[in-house]
């Protein structure tokens, strides 16, 4: 068998290795937990983006660049809802990753997942296995596109980039948003969250202080009131002194709409409580004793809890 330098497999192999070599310049190892380090991406010189759940301390973080130099870093902010954390290096070093900002991930597209769980950058090959629209994580974070990868997950993989065949970053890999499958957080989400974390140190989220449970509405009431949905959210707890409490919401009320949009799942309400609503008065529509009524709630800000993965 002759070896031709222009064989398709050989040139594919060369392209993949070149993509890894190029993207590697912007991959780092982060020592912020016990045992193996996690991975991170140089977002711009001096700024690292990584997976929140791998950062187990806020200070005394050591970052190893792909050329072996080590730099101290501190946590600039973290958003547990999207599993994104941002670190600031003690010096403005590093090569910013090139980003594939022009296109959404497509099913079947070749991806390389890079990581640096030690002294060297490592690579895994796969394809984009599923894509979908915007979704919400378990913790209520908004992710702009659903992108699941058919790539093996190795220790230390979280926080590293998935890159295309040209070595451009498609997203931030994490095993923290879905069980047993590799997800990549798309660039748009990373960009949005990073900007908020760098400017405010956190992602601001609205808060009304209600515990809610989906309940099936009485068929007669749905018909009589011409309600768009058959399920509402029953108030099962109210935070003392919180916005909903101040607005006069009672236990047993059933919330059917928030700011004009019907709600039948707590995640819909969580989604509507984005940071820009903080301080504004929103109309909440509910059923009390089977009769509809409206209340005005001034959205507060969700206080940060100490949340560690």
């Amino acid at each position: 068998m002759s070896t031709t330098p222009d064989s398709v497999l050989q040139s594919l192999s060369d392209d993949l290795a070149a993509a890894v070599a190029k993207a590697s310049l912007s991959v780092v190892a982060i020592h912020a937990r016990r045992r193996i380090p996690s991975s991170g991406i140089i977002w711009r010189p001096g700024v690292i983006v990584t997976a929140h759940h791998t950062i187990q301390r806020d200070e005394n973080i050591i970052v190893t660049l792909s050329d072996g130099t080590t730099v101290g870093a501190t946590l600039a902010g973290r958003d547990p809802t999207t599993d994104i954390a941002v670190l600031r290096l003690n010096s403005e070093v590093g090569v910013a990753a090139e980003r594939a900002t022009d296109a959404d991930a497509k099913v079947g597209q070749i991806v390389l997942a890079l990581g640096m769980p030690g002294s060297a950058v490592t690579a895994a090959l796969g394809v984009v296995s599923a894509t979908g629209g915007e979704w919400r994580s378990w913790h209520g974070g908004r992710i702009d596109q659903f992108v699941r990868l058919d790539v093996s997950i190795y220790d230390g993989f979280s926080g590293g980039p998935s890159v295309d065949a040209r070595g451009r970053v498609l997203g931030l890999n994490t095993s923290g948003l879905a069980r047993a499958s590799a997800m990549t957080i798309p660039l748009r989400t990373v960009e949005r969250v990073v900007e908020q974390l760098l400017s405010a140190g956190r992602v601001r989220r609205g808060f009304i202080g209600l515990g809610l449970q989906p309940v099936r509405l009485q068929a007669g009431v749905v018909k009589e009131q011409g309600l768009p949905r058959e399920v509402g959210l029953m108030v099962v707890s109210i935070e003392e002194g919180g916005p909903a409490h101040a607005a006069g919401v009672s236990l047993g009320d059933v919330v059917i709409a928030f700011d004009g949009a019907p709600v039948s799942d707590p995640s819909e309400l969580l989604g509507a409580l984005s940071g820009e609503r903080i301080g504004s008065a929103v109309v909440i529509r509910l059923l009390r004793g089977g009769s509809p009524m409206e209340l005005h709630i001034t959205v507060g800000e969700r206080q940060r809890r100490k949340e560690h993965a």
Partner: protein
Amino acid sequence: MTVTPIDGSTLAAGSALAAGSALAADIELERLAAFVRSYTVEVLSRGRSSAGSGVIWHADGLIVTNAHVVRDARPQVALGNKEVVEARIVAIDKRFDLALLSVRGDGLHAAPIGDAESLRAGSLVLALGHPLGVHNALSLGVVHTVTTERGLPRYIAADVRLAPGNSGGPLVDTSGRVVGINAMIVGGLGVAIPSTVVRRFLRQVSASGAVNLSVPLAA
């Protein structure tokens, strides 16, 4: 470029590429798999259904496999044509986890040996073997990382799916050259002993006088 299937026929240069590079890659993969099969053998131990794989290193009948695959004083080797022959153990080195077997067989094809030092993270590699009793299973992936010891490759970690029975089989580059001997699975990664280490092992065997060949084992 020309795409030459293993049966010797020649596809028109443009036909595969016109249909897309994915098809061209597919045809090459098929050809490559057939080529790697021609020098990959199965190493059997008595009383066991699955044992391991091996690589025909020399057409005189020398086969390289893992030491841990050879559990028998008189192992047997199933050649590509399903012929099962008795093998003699020439040398075993548990430290390298390598073994050299010798068989008598006609028309054996020796594997071309590649250079593990040329591998980079992201380079495409293939593994062939007989995992869990499945014959000639092919697995495709990329080099995860090559760990070195005193500047020399010590292990190749590759993102290829392996299972027991792959042990002793070849890890090859896109030209079908053997760059490593698959030896273990660590954290889901395939780990292979680089061809450079196999050569070192063979030099030691050769120096000990265990084999006497007209052709040097390892240059």
